[in-house]
């Protein structure tokens, strides 16, 4: 997990280079406010929520905000007032600092492309299309690559960096996060006529099955035609990237993925 810590503490440090945001209250997308918020987070929050927001004694922030989205005002209120009945205390920070912290949490838990990510995206691009990581054997970006697995054209525009990282390296205590990119069941379908189809089921019922095979071709199958169905109990996503890639390679790959977005980020970086 070492690279994780290195990887995600970095955005805060990078953002910090933008300088302090004096009087930048209520500016959740302002890079300077994010940078100032990062410093506050490191001293006030990381002890419980982890240096990268992935949780420790306190909850994982990008999981929590994925399932319970909060508006900026609500996030501000949670930081200001704490959460009754839990270990989350109220803060004595000023309004201005609380807004800066809100800005940082928003950047940490918002789409990856809206905040600067560490690493070299050009190097990450080579890793993505190369054979060592072999990402494009299953995934495509803007039509290039395999169509079997989830499309990554908007991965940085739709997911926080923390979730993308977890898709590459699932947390040991929660391997289900491996499915965070929307992966479906891997299947091998043996038809009554002897044909065998391998791929990912986009949908499945007792009556019909829709499969995208390894070539990215769609098969619409009636279950009356199926003799045998083998279902992979885990994601087809490899889980050995922590050892397959070096710390630097992982950081660069994340930097590349963070920049994949259908729309330009809402804030200039």
């Amino acid at each position, binding site marked *: 997990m070492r690279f994780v810590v290195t990887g995600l503490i970095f955005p805060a440090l990078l953002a910090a280079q933008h300088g302090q945001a004096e009087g930048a209250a209520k500016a959740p997308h302002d890079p300077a406010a994010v940078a100032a918020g990062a410093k506050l987070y490191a001293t006030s929050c990381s002890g419980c929520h982890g240096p990268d927001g992935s949780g420790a004694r306190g909850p994982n922030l990008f999981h929590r905000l994925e399932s319970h989205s909060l508006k900026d005002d609500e996030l501000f209120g949670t930081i200001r007032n704490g959460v009754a009945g839990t270990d989350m205390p109220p803060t004595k920070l000023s309004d201005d600092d609380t807004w800066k912290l809100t800005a940082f949490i928003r950047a940490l838990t918002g789409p990856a492309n809206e905040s600067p990510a560490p690493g070299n995206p050009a190097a990450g691009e080579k890793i993505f299309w190369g*054979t060592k990581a072999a990402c494009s054997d299953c995934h495509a970006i803007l039509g290039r690559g395999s169509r079997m697995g989830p499309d990554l054209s908007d991965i940085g525009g739709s997911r926080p960096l923390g979730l993308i990282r977890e898709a590459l390296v699932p947390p040991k205590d929660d391997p289900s996060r491996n499915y965070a990119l929307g992966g479906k069941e891997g299947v091998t379908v043996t038809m009554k006529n002897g044909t065998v189809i391998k791929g990912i089921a986009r949908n499945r019922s007792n009556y019909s099955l829709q499969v995208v095979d390894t070539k990215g071709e769609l098969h*619409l199958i009636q279950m009356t035609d199926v003799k045998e169905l083998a279902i992979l109990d885990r994601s087809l996503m490899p889980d050995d990237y922590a050892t397959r890639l070096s710390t630097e390679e992982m950081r660069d790959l994340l930097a590349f993925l963070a920049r994949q977005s259908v729309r330009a980020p809402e804030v200039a970086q």
Partner: protein
Amino acid sequence: MRSGPMKTCLSLFLFGVIAVAQVRYEDILKGPGEDWTTYAGNYQGWRYSPLKQITVQNAGSMVPKWAYHVPDANGLRTSPIVYKGVMYVTDSNSLYALDARTGRSIWTYHDSKAKKKGVNRGAAILGDSVYFTTTDNYLVSLDRQTGDLLFSKKFGEVDKGTTSTSAPFAVKDKILVGSAGGDSGMRGFIVALSAKTGDELWRTWTVPAKGEPGSETWSDLHEWGGAGTWLSGTFDPDTNTLFWTTGNPWPDFAGAPRLGNDLYTCSLLALDLDTGKLKWYFQFTPHDTHDWDAQSWPVLVEIPWKDTHGVTAMRKVVLHANRNGFFYVLDRATGEFLRGTQLIDKQTWAKGLDDTGHPVLLPGKDPTPEGNWVCPSIKGGTNWMGQSYNPGTGLLYVLTLEECGMFTTSTQKPVPMKNFAGGGATEPGGQVVLRAIDPKTGKRAWEYPMTGSAKMWTGTVSTAAGVLFSGDDDGHMLALDAKTGRHLWHFNAGDLMTASPITYEVDGKQYVAIAAGTNVFAFGLFEPMQSTPLPKITRGAGSRPAEREP
């Protein structure tokens, strides 16, 4: 392909149940068969299918085959596209690919970053792509099998009042897209984009800029004059001509700030496909003040026509049932007005049409501060709902509305994009009537009045078996005898219908599909269901592709 573990692994996987073939222009040109590959079925705008499994005799035994609930939908406008067993339906900023036999979801694309929400009328298909537009004017190209994004390209400025609601129109190597938003100020256009890249190839503005021909028909407000192009067009392959209709001028009910005919609002435009150059235009409602867009689409047919010397010969014409209450026949090559007849019974704003097709106005019908009672109402004698032309019966089937309304003006100063329409109009209720019109004479062959609230937007589709499908004003899906209008079958879909039906075939079975309110329904002939035994299912950790290589 690269070498490495995956290569070996991929080579282990063969097979394909579905033939992989690109959708070619020639395939769309052929018109519907098993598939339904363009918004109106064929380029001529017929909404007609050669399928014959469902007949006048057996339509009474139709049953629902499946329903798909579109998440968060409200008043779906989409007309499905079907290709090789996959159905594509759209909603606001979303496209859904469904198994057309079962209604099961295959994939969904949603653009959550779109700056606006709004209705969407459908998709287009060409090559390996399926296309739709976002409400904030991006053309989105997706892999038709997997939903993978190929490109998302902006073609219009939502900040200048333009939105997008219509199905893109795929012709040859181009995707043609219209513009919406004319009721709150914008400048309409039709734009041709590259099917491969989304790059702009040409753009034709529907309101001339100052100094351009036609700009003299405006006193002011050129930049916000409207003339939206919010329904797909039709196409004549013989002359490489696009036919596209335009919407109302803005402000809708206030004519004073835009004195003149306001070209090219409420018009039909004939454009060269390669360049977008205007070949001719015909304006149905000059200086409109009742929001009577010319949006009902132009239907391209060839019918026997008696010329001025009394000689009858086949003539290529454009049929157009207009919101202003008249039904027009125009020469397809020149736009010459050939005939205009009343589409509806209640029409009180014009004495008739003159020899050139211009309306002969009756006094006291413009909106005023006190209001004027005018027929048809703002919704018009018909609207954007899909018509069907059936070459077997030779009839055009049009949903019409008999309704009048009070039109008023406001003293507010027009401000673009503030939704100021210059006044208002009432829709007090009326009678929806499905009418079969003989284009050779302009006369009605039959009509089918409906019960309901006069709020529907349902169109029609008809088949070679002589069956006409539509939705009624009360939430029923209908099958009628296309020759006589006799009722054959109905189904209560339980929601107001605001979209047009299509028909298609998969595995030798004919289906009729319609988006009804919040669901997409598919219907077919009843057949007893065969038991589906569960296959042998095994679960396990298995092996990942990359681990297969020894």
